[in-house]
């Protein structure tokens, strides 16, 4: 009896862990987009949450009005958002390339507000219900249940993380991205097309944001204009926690935030869950001021 009780507690805990992994993997995907854009132009792209939201809306339209198959829903939403992301960079951020960083931050806030209110006008405030675009099966591992959506979400974010990390560290184009992020003029002198490199980064980041948005809306059923705000903020925190600008860091941060959030709700307090997430972030940063995977490089003088 006692043994049974123990097993039950463990199962409950594992179930909660899986819940956390699910949220975490979505945060991770969105965080990767944040981190990429941050990495290259040192801009906290506040509009990333809204990219995610629009991505979800396009997927919603693709799935309901056009009845496209899953892969086409994902792909179309990612492509459209990649284009929109590049356009936003071109219109709103490029003119501020050489301006103080905080000014670009304000523009990003402006873009975020703009997109949110645009969505409000186009789509109206009431949430749309996202159809279940993935085949829904529940897998049972003993007492623990995992839905196929959860597995797909986790799989996709791991896949993209590894892919992107390799891309940035190992390929020539990836090195070019890092070069641009460090010194644009020097990058030009190497023959790198800076504008194109930045556009590419925005395209990739926005496509991932869109994917995150679709997964988020599938997991939590709804699509609505302000849906990007909270996950956007959480993903941003995740990116910082892992070490902003570092792709595996974003991933790690996403998973940690997801876990902490879920376990806090399960075992400590739901009302204080967000506060605890922030408290953990702060504590981690106090001990590791550049995030978990951030390098503690001191400025050489």
């Amino acid at each position, binding site marked *: 009896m006692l043994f049974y009780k123990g097993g039950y507690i463990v199962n409950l805990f594992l179930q909660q862990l899986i819940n956390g992994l699910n949220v975490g993997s979505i945060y991770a995907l969105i965080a990767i987009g944040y981190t990429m854009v*941050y990495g290259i132009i040192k801009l*906290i792209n506040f509009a990333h949450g809204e990219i995610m939201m629009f991505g979800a809306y396009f997927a919603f339209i693709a799935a309901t009005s056009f009845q496209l198959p899953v892969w086409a829903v994902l792909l179309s939403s990612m492509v459209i958002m990649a284009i929109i992301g590049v356009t936003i960079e071109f219109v*709103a951020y490029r*003119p*501020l390339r050489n*301006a*103080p960083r*905080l*000014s*670009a*931050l*304000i*523009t990003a*806030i*402006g*873009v*975020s*507000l*703009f997109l*949110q*209110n*645009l969505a*409000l*006008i186009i789509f109206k405030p009431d949430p749309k219900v996202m159809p279940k675009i993935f085949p829904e099966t529940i897998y049972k591992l003993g007492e623990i249940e995992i839905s196929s959506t959860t597995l797909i979400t986790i799989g996709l974010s791991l896949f993209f993380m590894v892919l992107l990390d390799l891309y940035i560290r190992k390929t020539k184009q990836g090195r070019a991205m890092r070069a641009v992020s460090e010194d644009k003029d020097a990058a030009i002198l190497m023959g790198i097309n800076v504008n194109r490199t930045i556009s590419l980064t925005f395209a990739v980041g926005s496509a991932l944001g869109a994917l995150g948005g679709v997964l988020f809306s599938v997991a939590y059923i709804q699509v609505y204009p302000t849906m990007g705000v909270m996950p956007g*903020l959480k993903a*941003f*925190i995740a990116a*910082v926690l892992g070490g*902003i600008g570092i792709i595996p860091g974003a991933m790690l941060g996403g998973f940690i935030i997801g876990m902490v959030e879920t376990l806090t709700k399960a075992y400590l307090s739901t*009302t*204080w869950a*967000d*506060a605890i997430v*922030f*408290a953990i*972030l*702060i504590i981690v*940063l*106090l001990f590791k*001021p*550049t*995030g978990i995977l951030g390098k503690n490089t001191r*400025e050489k*003088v």
Partner: protein
Amino acid sequence: MDHNKKKAYLINTIAIVATYLVFFVLIQTKTMNNYFVGIAIMTCIMIIMAMSLNIVAGFLGEMALGHAGFMAIGAYASAVFSMALVDSGLPLPKLFILILAMIVGGVVAGIFGFLIGTPTLRLRGDYLGIVTIGFSEIIRIFFINFGPTGGAAGLKGITRLVNFHNVYWITILVAILIFTLGRSKQGRAIISIREDEIAAEAAGIPTTRYKVLGFSLAAFFAGIGGALYAHYQSFLEPSKFGFMFSIEMFVIVVLGGLGSLTGSIISAIVLTVLPEMLRSFSEYRLLIYSLVLIIMMIFRPQGIFGRSEFSLTAFIESLIQRKKVKNSIDGGEAS
């Protein structure tokens, strides 16, 4: 030099008093109705908030995105204090209660600024930004869950003590104090950290101490802003002090020009009045507001005034100068 300074003092004093008199007359004759007075009061409060944030963002050069948290602390602390004071039934004049409440709000917020700033200020830039967001969210969540101040439903029954007349003079006083701070030994030390922290250390500035000082002062003045807010609204809701409110203040500061107090003032006026002017556009209002924000930043990335201050004296002189030049040209033609 000294003569010029005296002249500048005189001109500024005249301008401040004249502005007040204009408002005074408009209000007394009811030309300005309560709607406008309400906006004017909120504008003054936002000016205080923006200027105080400018100490951290502009002088110290740190990205602080949690100013609403300190405002909340100041608002709640002062409200609890003044409610107790009013309940005690002591026959105190309103203004006196308000000033005491402001001091309480400012000091409590300042203490929190000190407590939060001390461990966190060794973080740089964006990392500091996120931590300040974190703290202000924790503060907000605290007030949502804290029964004695009404929790999520809010704190009701705060005596309304703020009117345009007192808020105007308090704003002027705060503006002067922050301005003189910027031009003192302490202000210079804080600014040097913004310019180059390593060089500041090498010049003998105890950077940590001055960072904490700047942060606490900003929190102190934010607390005063919060106190005024509480005693104007007479009702406090934790949800007001969310992330977006902090962002709103930050936008004001950057748009006015980091480090420019006159910039903060102008920008606070514009960004408080603009949404009101757009009110009749209903749902398009925020769309327009955000567009204006983007366009302003693209065309004026360093903010309205950059890092410099608007000088009334210089402005008047340039007007006179232009007139003189014009006169001489006119004269030339005549002869």
